[in-house]
């Protein structure tokens, strides 16, 4: 029967994450943004608490938690600071791809879960791919992606000239690429956002993890997991903005009374609460679905992420709006949450594209072509 109760084990894990978020992440948020990375102390503590290997398989010393547990923990952490969460090692998208690999033990992670390994889905417009000696050469500069700066290993997925999907693992000790910080100022500044530069970079045959239908299936399943996990982080930042807004506005007076007594304020805050709760429920439902049925639940995952991205923009924007001029100042956290939420939307796909995907699934159209068959 329908239930919205976490298990006791999940509750215990969430309490640890919440405490860490409240007492450390929230405090360290501005400093991490300034230095463009979480401090060593924060990383060490997150590692100690087991919070950065939630998705990784046990064979790689990860916790291999079900998604329904992870979404609660990630919401709790992102409530502290989404920027730091996106900058922590181990919580990269590649974890989900590693999780679904049939033999993850064959990967040589440079430093176990503490390593940042971005997963770059290379698009045709940004990187040119040519075949060479059973492998491929990559040429071009990627769009800004999370976790790229300073990464010593990369997971890349791309389409070969004939349209075949390829999934490969690149290691800096064997393969050359550069990264570039660029001029990123919007948000998620501690998330190592940058561009990868491939200059005739060779993907050797032995770097290829999967190709063809196998690679497509792995990417689809990992994408489904990533969508749910990233949606959960959106819920965390929404809740942060909502609660701060309630606290602030309950003290703020104008025209002789507390401003929530004006319905322009209280109704907006009610909408923020409704959107946050709606997004959280969708994330939980998607997590349950993906845990049960894997990539078959792409519709649920797409629905959850699209809704969460839209709601995150709405809620964090209204958080700034409700604080008025104060909301625009960096003395208050809401402006950062708004910037971070917007950057999250930019990095994790246009919500319209996710809605399209869910709609295509509902309609039964061919995924790539959008054609009724």
């Amino acid at each position: 029967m329908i239930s919205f109760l976490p298990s006791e084990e999940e509750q215990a894990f969430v309490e640890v994450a919440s405490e860490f978020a409240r007492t450390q992440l929230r405090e360290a948020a501005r400093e991490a943004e300034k230095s463009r990375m979480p401090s060593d102390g924060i990383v060490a503590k997150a590692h100690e608490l087991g919070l950065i290997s939630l998705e990784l398989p046990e064979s790689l010393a990860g916790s291999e938690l079900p998604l329904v547990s992870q979404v609660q923990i990630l919401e709790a952490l992102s409530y502290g600071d989404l920027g730091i969460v996106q900058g922590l090692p181990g919580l990269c998208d590649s974890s989900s791809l590693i999780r679904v690999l049939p033999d993850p033990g064959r990967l040589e992670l440079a430093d176990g879960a503490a390593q940042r390994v971005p997963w770059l889905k290379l698009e045709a417009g940004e990187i040119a791919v040519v075949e060479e000696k059973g492998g491929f050469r990559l040429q071009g500069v990627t769009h800004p992606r999370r976790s790229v700066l300073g990464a010593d290993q990369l997971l890349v997925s791309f389409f070969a000239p004939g349209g075949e999907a390829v999934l490969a693992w690149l290691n800096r000790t064997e393969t050359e690429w550069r990264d570039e910080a660029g001029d990123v100022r919007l948000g998620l500044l501690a998330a190592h956002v940058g561009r990868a530069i491939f200059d005739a970079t060779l993907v050797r045959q032995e770097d290829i993890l999967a190709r063809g239908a196998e690679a497509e299936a792995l990417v689809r399943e990992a994408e489904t997991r990533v969508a749910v996990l990233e949606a959960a982080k959106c819920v965390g930042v929404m809740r942060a903005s909502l609660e701060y807004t309630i606290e602030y506005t309950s003290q703020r007076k104008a025209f002789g009374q507390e401003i929530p007594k004006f319905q322009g304020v209280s109704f907006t805050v009610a909408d923020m609460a409704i959107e946050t709760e709606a997004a959280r429920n969708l994330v939980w439902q998607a997590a349950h679905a993906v845990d049960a049925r894997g990539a078959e639940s792409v519709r649920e995952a797409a629905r959850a992420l699209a809704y969460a991205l839209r709601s995150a923009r709405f809620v964090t924007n209204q958080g700034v709006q409700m604080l008025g001029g104060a909301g625009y100042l960096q003395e208050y956290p809401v402006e950062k949450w708004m910037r971070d939420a917007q950057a999250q939307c930019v990095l994790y796909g246009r919500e319209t594209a996710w809605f399209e995907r869910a709609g295509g699934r509902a309609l039964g159209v061919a995924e790539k072509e959008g054609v009724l068959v």
Partner: protein
Amino acid sequence: MVHWFAEHEMRPISLLADREERVPDDWLAKVNRMGISLSMSNFGGDGGKKKEGEARKEPRERQTNRLGVIAAEELAWGDPAIALSLPGPGLGGPPVMSTGTPEQKERFLGIFTKDEPRWGAYALTEPGAGSDVSGIRTSAKKVDGGYVLNGHKVYITNGGRASWVVAFATVDPSLGRAGHRAFVVEKGTPGFTCTRVAHKMGLRASETAELVFEDCFVPIDNLLGGEAHYENRAGSSGFRVAMSTFDSTRPIVAAMAVGIARAAYEYTLDFVKKEYPRGQRVRSDVLAKLGEMDAKIHAARLLTWEAAWKADLGQPNAKEAAMCKAHAGRISLEVCSDCLEIMGPIGLDGHLVEKLYRDVKVFDIFEGTNQIQHLIVARRLYEPHGLRL
């Protein structure tokens, strides 16, 4: 089972009932014999037909509220106006169940049998008191053996054909909420008349009546909960009866809105599959709209289930009930509107979606407007901060 009924018994007469602004009598009689009622989806689960002793047999964690919202969604998917017309105590059931004495429950709920369709109704709104329930002016003057009611009630679902109506009145307007009393007024009581059945934008097959009480004597036995119920409690007990009814019925109304939205969405999916040319790209904006509708419907459904789940746990659910009602009422209209947009002019002519669009608008109004739901949510959010809105 409920979906089967909705698909095979309700949907086939949906457009006919809308055009004729009534549900056929023989259909209602047949359905009544089948034991189908919207009350099966009321909080309390069985529409009050349960015997007193059976309450002890309930499992520790009740599921009736969750089953109720699931059933309500399915019935509204079939047709919301027909669902509201199904025989049973309707919105009058929850206050009788929650506040009535054992004798009153037996007397008023015991009439809903399979031999003949009967209805109950709930009369709160007045021409001058809609969202502000505390402002009702229907008067209840204490006299020997009972009360005399005088006043006017509007927008009463099944009010004309109901065997009885739970009517709210005040013994003294200056007392505000503390003066409220709930009475069960039976059809045929002298001074109690149905003066008009309203013609509406949608839900046309559902009867919406105006009721008038003119020196209408109601015996003391019909005061819901009896005198002691109002004497033993601090102040606003009658008002609380009205409000607690809303906490119970709003998730049902929200679930019905979800059912309507889903009906429009599924109808439109089928339309696109059938009418759009094979082998050609479906426009990306159409795909995105369908995906967005899918997300909105699921979000509203989950909020509704959450409110029902809290009720099953016996936890206060006023905030969640208001959240689901506010959200479902709004998005269901958006979904129906987007469906019409996708169908284009074809949708205007003999298709279900235009009817659903007309039907669904009121789900953002009745059982508390969207604005009232926002007020309730905001009150609950600011309460812990010592702020009373």
